[in-house]
């Protein structure tokens, strides 16, 4: 089981801020593929990965990051703080 979090317009497109999923995805990219085929709203949210950033257990990573042992994956647009 893994917690998946969505922020900003990704949260709006997916329609929820977080969910708990059963997944056997080996990497972040695999998880995204699982989500995209699940429902239209995920396909819409993840249609352009170049506009999406990922954190695994609150550390920024690439889409090729492994999920083994991860408790939390977060998807969000490029950050705009400051």
């Amino acid at each position, binding site marked *: 089981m893994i917690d998946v979090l969505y922020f900003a317009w990704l949260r709006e497109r997916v329609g929820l801020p977080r969910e708990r999923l059963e997944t056997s995805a080996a990497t972040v990219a695999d998880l995204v593929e699982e989500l995209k085929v699940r429902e239209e709203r995920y396909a819409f949210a993840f249609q352009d990965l170049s506009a999406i950033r990922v954190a695994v257990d609150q550390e920024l990573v690439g889409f090729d990051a492994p999920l083994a042992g991860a408790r939390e994956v977060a998807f969000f647009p490029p950050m705009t*703080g400051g």
Partner: protein
Amino acid sequence: MGVRVQSEPFDAGAEANAFTAAATGAGAVVTFSGVVRDEGGRLQAMSIEHYPGMTERALATHRETAVERFGLTDALVIHRYGDLAPGDVIMMVATAAPHRKDAFGAAEFLMDYLKSRAPFWKKERGPDGESWVASKDDDEAALDRW
């Protein structure tokens, strides 16, 4: 003085004074404050979303890196989330060092990292509705110099 992530307004001047008073031996104190622009009346309100937990971690890490890299005697980061109005102070950083070059460098370093690496997202509301603020290529490029 650490990092703080909060929805409440803060008094940037009072924070700067307390920071300066505590920075014994510093000599040079630099602050940066980010203020919500009204964009000539086109911006009516702003709301900031963040990633509780990761935000504090990212800010603390960047702060620690700045302290070590620039030999700071202290550094402070405060960032608001939630609803803001034009003229509101969004965030501030303060850096203290023996000499001005390091205090300036560290403040710019912290701002560059905070802009592109701390999990905050701004949404603006104007006459035509709401929209998420797009990240700037400039901000990503600014990291290359460090």
